[in-house]
């Protein structure tokens, strides 16, 4: 029934060069028969393991611990998935005491790039360290926000950064007769981002590469609401403050002199927030009013821009066919009940497009007309029993802890174990109505770490919460 693969993209070739899957036409990619997908994935994974094992110390250690010497079946990969918490497994004192030499050494364990020649001992802030790695190496570290102040660091290479752009662009291509996400070529569509333009979180890195790879360096195609930089140090100190406050140790937080020296910038940013928003809004209105745009950002920042825009009289600023991607989770923020309508009213997009992804993946899956998140063939899913870690059968539909192996990675190990509880259909006995062949994730996903046993649970053990006051604290600390 399924059409065979095009001659140039046969199972053999794709298995040997799985990174070429992302170049495939969307219809072809989602039509690969299940058996062929499995064959490509096994061959590709074997190749990656074979090539990377000796070059990534953490993988070597994990393989040894788990006694895996060879990937014979896809199941053999499961014990080699790196839990997402591994990306923040360095001791916190590395950040607190600015031991960036040791942090580099730790990071070296996760990448094929040799970091031993990088002398980070002189760095006295995380931003400094990230700049040094950008300048001296081929890795573009992506960090998280880290609620405890400990940031996760993923050492993505420039190689994968370019692939990330290909994956990003491919999601806008049409699939069969479905209405595409936008009504113009993505190469001509400006991207609006509702936060700092610079920084080292996944979006900032993506924007850099979109600008160079997709837009040929045209800076007007990537507009951010703040031209400044999101400081990794500020993000970390915010979390450390929360922890310190909860332990009653506020006075003990150490802030590097360099960060203190940036107080003028922080102060100016705080004072100019209104003016910066003015400029951004005027800019995007002048350039792109009525046009189709792609908007990305976290829910609270998108909401903030929408509120500011509506205040200034902008309403339904862009084409209804604009693309709206809200990151960072739909829950957990304290926004008014009408936050979603406010966002639509300002931007003019008809709806937001739900997605499921994470920094560790090159791209997020978008929801299909059948209401599912389809995994592309380069993403090998794993489903584990949450309590025992045992693999669940790779057939039918099951609920469990989600893991994946991303075949696009060649400079770091692409196998990760998330903290997400996911219902996954393997696509064999219940294909999705949209016609895509292969496994898909249902919308009912959640984090295991979310509270269990009701949200009004009171115990006598624990530490009180506090709020993010990083910048205020820095400003206070320097009087």
């Amino acid at each position: 029934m399924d059409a065979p693969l095009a001659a140039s993209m046969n199972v053999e070739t794709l298995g040997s060069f799985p990174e070429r899957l992302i170049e495939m036409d969307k219809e072809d990619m989602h039509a690969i028969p299940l058996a062929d997908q499995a064959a490509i994935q096994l061959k590709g994974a074997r190749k990656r393991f074979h090539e990377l094992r000796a070059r990534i110390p953490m993988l070597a250690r994990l393989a040894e611990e788990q006694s895996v010497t060879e990937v014979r079946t896809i199941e053999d990969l499961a014990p080699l998935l790196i839990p997402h918490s591994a990306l923040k497994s360095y001791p916190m004192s590395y950040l607190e005491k600015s031991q960036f030499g040791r942090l580099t050494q730790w990071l070296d364990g996760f990448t094929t790039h040799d970091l031993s020649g990088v002398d980070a001992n002189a760095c006295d802030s995380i931003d400094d360290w990230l700049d040094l790695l950008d300048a001296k190496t081929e890795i573009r570290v992506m960090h998280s926000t880290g609620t405890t102040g400990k940031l996760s660091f993923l050492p993505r290479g420039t190689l994968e950064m370019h692939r990330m752009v290909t994956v990003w662009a491919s999601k806008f291509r049409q699939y069969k007769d479905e209405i595409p996400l936008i009504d113009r070529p993505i190469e001509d569509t400006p991207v609006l981002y509702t936060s700092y333009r610079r920084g080292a979180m996944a979006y900032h890195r993506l924007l850099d590469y979109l600008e160079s790879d997709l837009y040929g360096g045209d800076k007007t195609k990537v507009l951010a609401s703040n031209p400044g930089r999101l400081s990794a140090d500020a993000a970390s100190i915010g979390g450390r403050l929360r922890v310190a406050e909860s332990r009653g140790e506020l006075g003990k937080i150490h802030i590097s002199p360099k960060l203190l020296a940036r107080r003028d910038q922080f102060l100016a940013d705080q004072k100019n927030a209104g003016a910066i928003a003015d400029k951004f809004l005027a800019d995007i209105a002048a350039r792109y009013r009525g046009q189709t745009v792609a908007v990305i950002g976290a829910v609270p920042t998108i909401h903030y821009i929408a509120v500011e825009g509506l205040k200034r009289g902008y309403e339904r600023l862009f084409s209804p066919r604009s693309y709206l991607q809200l990151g960072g989770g739909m829950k957990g923020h304290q926004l008014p009940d009408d936050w979603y309508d406010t966002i639509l009213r300002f931007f003019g997009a008809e709806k937001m497009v739900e997605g499921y992804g994470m920094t560790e993946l090159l791209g997020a899956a978008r929801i299909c007309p059948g209401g599912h998140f389809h995994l592309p063939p380069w993403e090998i899913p794993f489903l584990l029993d949450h309590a025992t870690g045992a693999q669940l059968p790779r057939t039918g539909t099951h609920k469990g802890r989600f893991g994946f192996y991303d075949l696009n990675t060649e400079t770091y190990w692409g196998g990760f174990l998330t903290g997400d509880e996911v219902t996954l259909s393997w696509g064999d006995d219940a294909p999705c109505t949209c016609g895509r062949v292969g496994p898909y994730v249902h919308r009912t996903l959640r984090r295991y770490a979310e509270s269990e046993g009701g949200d009004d649970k009171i115990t006598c053990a624990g530490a009180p919460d506090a709020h993010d006051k990083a910048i205020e604290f820095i400003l206070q600390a320097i009087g």
Partner: protein
Amino acid sequence: MTQFKAPLILRGEVIEDEDCEFGGRNPQTRFATPDVGKYLDRLPLSAPSALADLYTLSFEQILDFLEELGLRLAFKQNRHLQDALALTIRTSGLGEQILRNCYENLGSVFNRKQMREMADVLIGIPFLEGWVNTRSDNGTQTFVRAFGARSVHIVAGNVPTVSAITILRNTITRSDMIIKTPSNDPLTAGAIARTMIDMAPDHPITRHLSVAYWKGGDARIEEALYRPSNVEKIVAWGGMASISHIAKYIQPGIDLITLDPKLSSTIIGKEAFESEERMREVARRVALDIGVYNQQACLNARVVYIQTGTDKRGIDAANRFGRLVYEAIQALPLHLSNPVSSLEPQLAEEMEGLRFAGDAYKVYGGDGRGGVIVSQTDEQVEFSPLLANRVANLVPVDTLEIPIRAVTAYTQTIGIYPEELIPQIRDRLAWHGAQRLVTLGYVATARTIAGPQDGIEPLRRMCKWILNERHDPAAKPFWPWADAAPAREAATAA
């Protein structure tokens, strides 16, 4: 699918409407309750003078009542407690045997000798029974009496004993009480109240106890209830989570007593490592402090500082000690502590990550059976507040300055070894914030209820302390006007 009922107990009346459903994601932890909003007019004790009936009882009569209550809380005969156990088995982090043990011992909270001791040490029985002449000086006499108040208790649900102690404390002070139960234990307080109703439905003590569940923060209920005209004292367990709901209602006339969430630690001096035999004994004591009640309570040890030193020899000793502690945890009897099927999800994720930390930590165990993380430097893991399910962090140190300085206002109990160390460091620990210093191995098993809690004396604070002064004008003349004072005039005339 089990569906529990958490009735509203309203001053001796059991209301079993099923208007709302609450509880966890797991359907087996869900419970139905009446809408407390419908009964708001009856929930608070609107006339303060209605406390008077409690003053027809002598202290001994109160003890009589509580003592009998204690007998009727015998688990095997008490259906209400059995129901409560059936739910808490699913919502609590404690295993069935521990919970059963807690419920079976619930009655012993009302031990007459202990109750008397608690009242006498923490308040002074004469102050509860009448006006005590506290001072007589040259014609002036002062009298003080401890009165009950109209109180709301927002109780914690991690250990069922909290509900029993709350009821005991409140009754001793002759207060009116409304218990707001938590979603992780909505039944225990009600079970005790229903036992009272079965025993003496019209007794004043029964009539001054209400038990309700509403979702913490429900403004419809809290706005109406938390007013000085309804409530004088709020006793809240649970820190920010529960306090943030209440804070906005605090105003003159409402006294808020907080029993914040706390964490506890251990300090072990170098003497413990002088011989292998001693190490083994100390390891077993630490295991008790870590493992009793499955480390669900505020008093359980989480971070354990060990003065082994941090040179190679010291770290080796720390690692050996870590193994011994882990083995001792595994050997704890099941009525005190039990393994669980899996760690709390957040902690489990942190533990997984530790494998990738290089040589910074050594881990023994680390699954549902518990675990010991031995830091290979003198730094604790930064996720130490998440430590639970019998997972502890041993931190080797060269000097005791490190653990002493690590103490903060959120440190409740510190188990200490050897005993001689306690007097040497206890003042400094207190200045830093520690609230309870205990012989190693005894943090949970020998806890006295006749002592302060978390650095405050909740029982004294639950009372209204009323002062009566009498002045004899003859002995203490005070007459600011120009004309002569009547008393003196009378005296002169005579």
